[in-house]
């Protein structure tokens, strides 16, 4: 469909430093630290996942790195340019897809992209050509002349992503890019991102989903209440927290300690117990079969109401890493 000038080659920008670094980055709003002591070293052509709940400091980190917010402490550089000293230089080298779609509803999709291109100081001709190309690539060509306010959430997201790609930036920031997308759109977006990264783009994305970070990121930073609680490759993180969980639901709260006792030898960490829902969550050692748990429970005379095997969620990560999954008090961003 479209093959001309956007042949991917590792060109000029790939040789310049395209990574992202941060040392001791912090942001205080009044009395609250939304972000504290964030250290990053994202190598060019890799993906960093910032994982955390709402209010964990993910958006704050993105806003500082994209020059929308100034850090209270620390320093950061994007594509070799200091975010505080030369914000304009940073903006020339980044693409941003914010959590809230930042496109103009009263203009057509095409006009939105041309406007962004022009503000990147492309010529009119280049801006138009780029808009056409991106709309085709993101499957929005048919809606090119449609007003953006008539777009569905998923279409808006795609257009927002297109807008962030207009200047072919070496560094891309995506704030919860798949929130609110249906599974298929989400998979498409993942595929797209992988293509970009394969061709040398550096990406920082935030997510609330462990699975998403696992799928896309080369490195994961887990944030909780503004602080880094874990940092490593998905493999390292999974080795640390285990991947599988088995939820055992019982009929009476008095059975819960018995469940913990009976399944002790399969647990890689201390099981979590929810007295309200009458569920014991066991972080099982890899290779544990559901049948083994059933037999153990049966041998202990416990009548389990329900038994459910699943992948570890973000809540499980926090439970394991911080010993609490209290994530309800939000820090205003």
């Amino acid at each position, binding site marked *: 469909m479209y093959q001309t000038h956007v042949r*991917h080659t590792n060109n000029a*920008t790939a040789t310049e430093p395209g990574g992202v670094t941060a040392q001791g980055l912090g942001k205080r709003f009044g009395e609250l630290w939304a972000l504290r002591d964030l250290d990053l070293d994202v190598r060019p052509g890799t993906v960093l996942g910032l994982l955390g709940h709402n209010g964990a400091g993910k958006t704050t980190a993105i806003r500082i790195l994209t*020059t929308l917010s*100034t850090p209270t402490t620390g320093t950061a550089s994007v594509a070799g340019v200091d975010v505080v000293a030369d914000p304009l230089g940073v903006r020339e080298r980044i693409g*941003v897809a*914010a959590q809230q779609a930042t496109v*103009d509803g009263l203009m057509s999709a095409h006009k939105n992209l041309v406007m*962004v291109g022009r*503000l990147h100081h492309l010529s009119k001709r280049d801006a138009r050509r780029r808009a056409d190309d991106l709309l085709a690539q993101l499957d929005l060509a048919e809606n090119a002349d449609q007003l953006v306010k008539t777009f569905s959430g998923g279409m808006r997201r795609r257009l927002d992503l297109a807008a962030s790609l207009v200047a072919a930036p070496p560094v891309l920031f995506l704030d919860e890019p798949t929130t609110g997308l249906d599974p298929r759109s989400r998979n498409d977006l993942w595929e797209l991102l992988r293509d970009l990264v394969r061709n040398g783009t550096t990406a920082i994305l935030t997510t609330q989903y462990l699975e998403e970070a696992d799928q896309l990121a080369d490195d994961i930073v887990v944030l909780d209440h503004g602080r880094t609680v874990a940092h490593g490759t998905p493999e390292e993180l999974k080795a640390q927290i285990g991947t599988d969980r088995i939820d055992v639901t019982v009929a009476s709260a008095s059975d819960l300690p018995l469940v913990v006792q009976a399944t002790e030898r399969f647990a890689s960490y201390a099981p979590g117990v929810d007295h309200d829902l009458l569920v014991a969550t066991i972080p099982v050692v890899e290779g544990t079969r559901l049948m083994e748990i059933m037999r153990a429970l049966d041998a202990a005379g416990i009548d389990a109401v329900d038994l459910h095997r699943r992948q570890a969620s973000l809540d499980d990560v926090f439970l394991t890493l911080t010993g609490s999954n209290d994530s309800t008090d939000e820090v205003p961003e």
Partner: protein
Amino acid sequence: MTATTETTELARPEPIVPTLPGRTPLRLWWSDTLVFAGRNIEHIRQIPEKLLDVTLQPLMFVLLFAYVFGGAIAISGGNYREFIIGGILIQSLAFGLTGPATAISTDLTEGVIDRFRSLPATRTAYLSGHYVAELAGMALSVVVLLGAGLIVGWGLHNDALHVTGAFLLLFLFCSAMIWIGTYIGLVVRTPDAVMGVGFVVVFPLTFLSNAFVPIDSMPNVLQWVAAWNPVSVVVAAVREMFGNPASTVGKHTWPLDHPIPAAFMYCALLLLVFVPASLRRYRTRTSD
């Protein structure tokens, strides 16, 4: 994205080298300004009703005052229709400040402002773009109003120098109104608040003036208010330079006795206050 499995190879293209790198900062600022102004004009293309404020509304005022109220208001030494056009002109342009105020406060409550801020566009171009677009709207308003005036019996009765002076003053007055509106847009929390501010400030200022009636027809206290009101001064200056009948004055104040220099001074003063105030406010409002 659904039916394009064969084209999902989305390459990071060769960076398109911006074609304007050799441009001076001033040229870049101007090209960014035009992009933002073009955005406003695109909004008008999508919602043409937005233009009614600056076209149909003043036209209604001309017809209303020329044919309905006009007969009841006597002007010494002149025709009321010649008198009223200067007044309606300034009143309409003053109400025009709600345009940029609404547009800017709407942008600030939506995510689009973050997009603009993450682009390498010149920082002040967003505000100057609004200014250029609003100025074009006001120019249209002036043309419509004076055209309607010509039809109902208004005319220019002065030399080219004075008439040029009148248009220069209108330009400065429009600029001042746009920057006041810009400031309001940057201060209010929601776009809805703009209409309230417009009515509380602009409504009394334009009606407690010589715009529609001679000042000496008012009660004593209001005569003082009207005589000091900057709107009266600008209206008087425009009338004098157009060669239209002036409002009879009961109270004498220096500005109203010397409307032309005073009007230019008022406009310059407003610009000196509101342009820097808006720029500062924009910087603080859009950074944290």
